[in-house]
């Protein structure tokens, strides 16, 4: 895989993401791309929008970054089918930029939440083929605005199109109000676009790729991508 990792002013999980991508890619690091750049490398097959607080998230989360020069280019490539992985603030940016439907509202508890959660893998795609459908994985979240919301029509399309990637669940894979971390509709933790080429999720699989720091349940996602793009 040939990945481009976009850094905005205020991104802060680009290093974590770089480590996870590099490990899954046989030691080959992604290409770093600065938000002010207007071009992406020609031959890339994956674009990654990492977590953080782009532009301080002083407006709506991700709203400013969605209008930065590089995002026009990201949209063009995404339209051509280049895979996009958008995590946490990256997911917020992808929604604001129209790459994914819906919006991330402040958590129902109105607090930042940093903790390990259980996710249920809802469908197998180029991003998740190394997992089993219905498998539960433990990965951390760290966000204040992860409450996924969309209009009923969008939710129906997501459900009917098998476009929900992950849901907040318990260790047995049960999805309920009790396992709903932040108020997200249908416990949604991550979604795909219609072609399943863009994945946005609030949790941080990149922080679960090391046995000594956070466990290894996130490795499957990066290995899936690397295998799909090899």
């Amino acid at each position, binding site marked *: 895989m040939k990945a481009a990792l976009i850094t905005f002013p*205020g991104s*802060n999980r680009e290093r*974590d993401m770089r480590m996870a991508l590099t490990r899954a890619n046989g030691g080959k690091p992604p290409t770093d791309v600065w938000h002010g750049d207007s071009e992406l490398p020609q031959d890339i097959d994956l674009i990654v929008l990492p977590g953080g*607080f782009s532009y301080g*998230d002083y407006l709506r989360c991700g709203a400013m970054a969605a209008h930065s020069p590089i995002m026009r280019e990201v949209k063009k490539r995404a339209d051509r089918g280049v895979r996009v992985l958008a995590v946490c603030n990256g997911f917020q940016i992808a929604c604001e930029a129209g790459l994914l439907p819906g919006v991330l509202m402040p958590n129902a508890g109105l607090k*930042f939440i*940093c903790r390990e959660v259980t996710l249920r893998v809802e469908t197998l795609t180029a991003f998740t083929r190394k997992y089993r459908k219905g498998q539960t994985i433990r990965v951390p979240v*760290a966000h*204040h605005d992860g409450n996924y919301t969309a209009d009923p029509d969008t939710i129906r399309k997501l459900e009917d199109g098998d476009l929900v990637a992950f849901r907040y669940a318990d260790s047995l894979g049960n999805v309920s109000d009790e396992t709903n971390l932040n108020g997200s509709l249908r416990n949604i933790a991550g979604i795909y676009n219609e072609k399943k080429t863009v994945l946005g999720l609030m949790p941080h699989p990149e922080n679960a790729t090391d046995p000594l720091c956070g466990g290894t349940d996130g490795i499957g996602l990066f290995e899936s991508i690397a295998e799909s793009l090899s």
Partner: protein
Amino acid sequence: MSEGAKKAVNYPKDLMGLTHEEYDRVLEIMGREPNQVELGIFSVMWSEHCSYKSSKKWLKTLPTKAPWVIQGPGENAGVIDIGDGLAAIFKMESHNHPSFIEPYQGAATGVGGILRDVFTMGARPIANLNALRFGSPDHPKTRHLLSGVVHGIGGYGNCVGVPTVGGEVNFHPSYNGNILVNAMTVGLAKADRIFYSAAAGLGNPVVYVGSRTGRDGIHGATMASAEFSDDSEEKRPTVQVGDPFTEKLLIEACLELMATDAIVAIQDMGAAGLTSSSFEMASKGGMGIEIDLDKVPARETGMTPFEFMLSESQERMLMVLKPGSEKQAEAIFRKWELDFAVIGHLTDTGRMVLRFNDEQVGDLPIDPLAQASPEYDRPWVKTPPQPPLGKVNHPLPFIEALGRLVGAPDLCSRRWIWEQYDHLVRGDTAQVPGGDAAVVRVEDHPKKALAMTVDCTPRYCFADPVEGGKQAVAETWRNLTAVGARPLAITDNMNFGNPERPDIMGQFVGAVEGIREACLALDYPVVSGNVSLYNETNGKGILPTPAIGGVGVLDDVATMATLAFKLPGEAIILIGETRGHLGQSIYLRDICGQEAGPPPPVDLKAEKTNGDAVRALIHKGMVSAVHDCSDGGLAVALAEMAMAGGMGAEVTLPDGDAFEIGFGEDQARYVVTCPAAKAEEVLAAAEAMGAPARKLGLTGGDALTFAGQGTISVAALQAAHEGWLPRYMAGEL
């Protein structure tokens, strides 16, 4: 100055916090009456906050040297060698007064300030910690202050992308009108790439970078050097406003510039802003400095020289660059969308000259002002010893008392707090909050990690400042040891009341003495620190609170120990002597309703012997879980290990009164576990290293059983432990 001349002095109406004697010295140094800008500069430079005038005499007695100390106190932060060409840079600093007035911004800018102290020296900040003290839980303001402070620390730390990995919280009525917010940052740098603040090079450009200067925080340092009264909330305009996004950019821009050869000296603008940064840089380098205040980037129009010099606007740095490197430096700061301005140059006059609108608005000699600031030998009285603890009546059965204690405000889980902090960002957090010490891997190093903790037991310090000072240092040392780290050095954050009162000054002197003894005995020097005095409201002081931040190194992170019980059927072993000291224990206070007796004595020799033994057991891979005994004593330590592991145990306490043995807070103790078949080997190894060790029982089951006392389920312990803080904050208690 002669008596005759003194009488002729016409003191200004507003001395800006200076005393008459200090104003006399101003006249002496200036040889004339200062103008308002100059007087303002004297006022902040000689404030307690900037000058340490009450504490200096005593701080000088602290041990600050060891072969691994690269830089001790006196710079922006302390620097220690952690091997392999790497250095750890750290410091803890208080933001107490602003946090009481405006908890969110006060705490947030406290984090921002300590981060700058660390990255100013060339370090990438890798971890934040904090030590918080609030008033009684039933005080009407406590909930609001706790919520605001936690929100502020998270709001700033989460955004800048530095994990907040550890801390401590206490509640006590003495903090009702004066909370404590102490923030610590740990950073990493190459040992041969440390940046200092001494200016050098005649004519070299003085450069301002970061945020623009506004009118916020003017005279914050003076405010922080006075007691509170009922009108303190009117001081809100002296509190600064934080912008973590700009700080994040400033970190990246500074580290990028530091990778070049452009910087001669660098200093952050903290308390007393442009005044103290420029003075300290010039003074340390023996240089003069000329500043053109028109060139300072301003956030608002119409600012006066006085406001420029005394503003405490955040996220600003001052640098001296090598001539000719301005363009390269400016390009980096522009890339990060930050302000950059050459605002002056170095001279050889030894004076600070300020210009504004083509006029000279200030001219002060640097050395007399910065280095000859007042030093007081304040009168003090030794804290009288507490009478011995009399007979204690135990109102509750043992098991019920244990259930209450694990859910008590000072002992319950802090999860509600630390889950609001991003403790994982950067991907190197090997031990998350909730254990004895946080552990963060050293980036790009295959094995090495840093362990860090903050500790202090203010009720001990109040009862006996010397023993309390020792205990605070020893507890950090123990917590680092309990995760397997070699403790290396500390930062001290001394929070006390009004030093002009001899009893308060006596607490300070006693605590310093205790810290000194512990540092010497444990070979564990002080490399940085901060003093916060005048923590009083309406004449009532806080408990003396010398918060200690300790840092240690794990050469191989794979050997790291954690406190959770791991497997059923493992042997539980107690290391250290148990005498059953109930004086000043949490049990005595929270269950028996007494704050009485002397605190547990600290035997530093036993601390060293027992700690070295535990560390050796960890490194040899002989133990599966390790936890130190502190607040709540042995019974609470066992309960904490059970709750963390979701597994019970059956134990027999050492002989004696069960309440004293179970809840006494004797020092220098650890609980470890190991495979049952290896128990004799572990006991023998500990004894061979001189550490008393005895078997208490076995892990297993879903309840914690104390022989002869009863049983409590792990689920019931967890419910009490996890329940209190969320319920309290939700207003249910």
